[in-house]
């Protein structure tokens, strides 16, 4: 089965002509994809592109060690194809998704059921994996939870307090984010991308903007890339701090929990200082950034950042110094490095299992090409490791922002050709609304039949956007893969053999997005 590399290589944040993407008949395509994954690849996206009444499969694979991506596609398929999951379990959710969206049956898939919808009904309706036995009981949690969080259904198979199996049913917040972009981009697309997962606004907005820029054959000005990189780390700081506090809260450790809630707000306010919105909405636009950071505000940001960092260090110290907390975190919810690689974990979940996986480092695009960030890895794979990786990243992110603020690049924050199209008022926005090929006088149009890929390391992990244009340069297919899509399976694995009372801290240690998954 050892084959030479046949997928088309490309870099993060670039595009290739659709015609250049190598094509195989479906069964050979599955073999070729498996071969690429055997060679150290990792599945970033696997989706269908409708063509007439059939569907083509597309695979985007990341070779982290070689800092390159690769794409391949299948010939149109109508009914079924041999399942890739049997050889590479990381494909299991992708194949279920393709089955749900396009009706393509992955033959031999061990657990084929819908990902988001149950035949148009309630996601939790349907069959769950069951453990039989007199001592076994089933616990159903959700979709309505006791806190103000998003909806999702969790089905536990328990033997007393021990969880034998957990199955998660999501899809309650399916809004059709991908479908809405088909035929686009529409005028609302940018705002919709900012809310694919509201806590990853910068991550998804950067990926979407990068897609449009690479399709236009350009990139954002350096200063805009610099601003995006800073905003991305501010988002990471706020969320990681909030997560440390939430973890402390779930084991009833008051000091850190009380402090982190407040400090998270301080970090959010830094993003607000940057662009006027605590979640960074309205900052990133195709072609650059809508706001600039003048020297004065940069100095203000730096001062406030240092204060907040000192506070979060203190709060984290209480957490690490408390024996009772460590007793709860250590050896709880362990995912081994082998398991993590097999199911394709990304982001904090992967790094806490000892995998060196970070888009900023492995597939640098934008400002990260000039300002690399070291990868924060902690072995162990337990709740403690995931908390620890967050703390390490808080340190690195703060350091990164300090360094970047000291050496800002000069120049515009908006690529001129895009600038006019986004700020030029109704006439131009109408041209976007109608999805014309050329957004601005012909120089920066979207080419027809082009495939663009953008990866961004959001605070949770890899955010992957893939766009394919049609003959008119409109979106023919737009695929979004949030880190949560990869990592929910990690939570399911982490719970095996755990006490059911430890579920909340395991869940918080991953802190995955429901809406980012549901799209």
């Amino acid at each position, binding site marked *: 089965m050892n084959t030479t590399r046949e997928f088309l290589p490309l870099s993060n944040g670039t595009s290739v002509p659709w015609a250049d993407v190598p094509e195989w008949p479906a069964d050979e395509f599955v073999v070729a994809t498996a071969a690429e994954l055997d060679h150290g690849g990792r599945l970033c996206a696997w989706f269908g592109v409708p063509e007439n009444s059939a569907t083509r499969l597309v695979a985007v694979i990341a070779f982290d060690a070689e800092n390159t991506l690769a794409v391949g596609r299948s010939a149109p398929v109508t009914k079924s194809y041999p399942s890739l999951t049997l050889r590479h379990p990381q494909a299991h959710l992708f194949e279920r998704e393709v089955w749900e969206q396009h009706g393509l049956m992955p033959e031999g898939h061990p657990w084929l059921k819908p990902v988001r919808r149950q035949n148009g009904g309630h996601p939790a309706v349907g069959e769950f994996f069951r453990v039989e036995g007199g001592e076994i009981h089933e*616990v159903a949690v959700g979709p309505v939870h006791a806190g103000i969080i998003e909806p999702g259904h969790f089905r536990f198979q328990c033997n007393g307090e021990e969880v034998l199996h957990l199955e998660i049913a999501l899809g309650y917040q399916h809004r059709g984010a991908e479908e809405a972009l088909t035929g686009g981009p529409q005028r609302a697309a940018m705002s919709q991308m900012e809310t694919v997962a509201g806590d990853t606004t910068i991550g998804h907005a950067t990926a979407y903007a990068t897609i449009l820029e690479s399709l236009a054959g350009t990139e954002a000005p350096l200063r805009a890339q610099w601003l995006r990189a800073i905003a991305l780390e501010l988002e990471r700081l706020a969320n990681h701090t909030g997560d440390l506090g939430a973890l402390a809260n*779930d*084991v009833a450790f008051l000091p850190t929990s009380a402090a982190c809630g407040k400090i998270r707000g301080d970090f959010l306010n830094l993003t607000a200082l940057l662009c006027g919105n605590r979640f960074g909405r309205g900052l990133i636009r195709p072609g650059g950034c809508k706001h600039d950071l003048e020297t004065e505000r940069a100095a203000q940001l730096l001062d406030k950042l240092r204060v907040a960092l000192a506070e979060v260090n203190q709060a984290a110290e209480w957490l690490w110094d408390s024996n*009772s907390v460590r*007793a*709860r975190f250590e050896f709880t919810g362990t995912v081994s490095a082998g398991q993590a690689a097999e199911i394709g974990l990304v982001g904090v979940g992967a790094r806490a299992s000892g995998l060196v996986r970070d888009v900023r480092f492995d597939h640098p695009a934008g400002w990260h090409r000039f300002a690399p960030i070291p990868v924060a890895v902690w072995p162990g794979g337990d709740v403690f490791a995931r908390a620890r990786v967050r703390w390490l990243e808080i340190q690195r992110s703060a350091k990164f922002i300090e360094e970047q603020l000291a050496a800002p690049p000069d120049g515009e924050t908006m690529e001129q050709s895009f600038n006019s199209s986004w700020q030029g008022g109704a006439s131009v926005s109408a041209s976007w609304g109608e999805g014309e090929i050329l957004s601005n006088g012909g120089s920066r149009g979207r080419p027809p039949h082009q495939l663009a890929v953008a990866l961004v390391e959001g605070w949770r992990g890899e955010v992957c956007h893939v766009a394919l244009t049609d003959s008119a340069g409109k979106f023919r297919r737009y695929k979004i893969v949030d880190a949560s899509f990869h990592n929910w399976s990690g939570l399911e694995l982490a719970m095996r053999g755990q*006490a059911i009372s430890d579920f909340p801290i395991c869940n918080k240690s991953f802190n995955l997005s429901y809406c980012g998954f549901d799209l």
Partner: protein
Amino acid sequence: MTIALDIFLRLAVWLLLAPLLPGIINKVKAWVAGRRGPPVLQLYFDLAKLWRKGVVLSTAVSPMHILGPAMAWVAIIAAALLLPVGPAGASLSFRGDALLFVYLLAFARFCIALAALDTGSAFEGMGVAREVSYAVLAEAAIITALLTLCVQSGSVSLATMLAPSAGAGAALLAAGLFGVLLAENCRVPFDDPNTHLELTMIHEVMVLDHSGPPLAAILHGASLKLLIFAVLLTEAVLPLGKLSLLQAIGALVALVFVVAIVIGLVESLLARLAFRRVPLLLTTAFLFCLFALLVAWKGGMP
């Protein structure tokens, strides 16, 4: 007539003061966390609100769902009346009332557990399983503690047992009883009274389906139980029976206040235990009481 008046007065004091304790604990926690926190009287407001509310009943439940909290509440009140207050003694006192005291508390737990199982919910079943398994260990500790006091005073009546101090083993007994207090009243590190996570709850998950006045009875009963344990701890350690009435009441109030503050501090500074470690801590509490018993038994010998 005077007896009736006496019982009525004590009853009023117990019932009215009990909801104050959780308020003090929450205030301490808020203070440590740098928050303003809810008012000390919050539980009174909550109880008044619940009392005015209607009851939402599942179609699956039997009358036991309502009857359980009511019987538990009465049992806890009866247990409170058995406790003496310094030199004033108890309203009801007879030989062997210490045993009745333990069984009344156990009966209250039984009623709440039955009312919870009545809903047929997986959560509540889980909570009941946890509550009763930990209760086995906690009860062993409290019976040993009472046995210590019996040996010490040579009596099986609470009024006589709690009059003198526990003597040489007082510190051991206090440590053991404090552990039992935390476990029996679902405080950190055994349980987290503030959590919203149904999968980690013990006591709270058993009352998830209760609403309105029955929930008020459960909440009030829980605060009363906390007060009972705080008073029991105080009286076991201090020789309140030997003081004048005013001194005894002053010392009692002061020490119960201290106990509340210590509970607040423990909750502020400690994470809760994983469930598999709870038996270890309860066994430790039991051992403390057991050593206090040994001290009382052998230490008193000439």
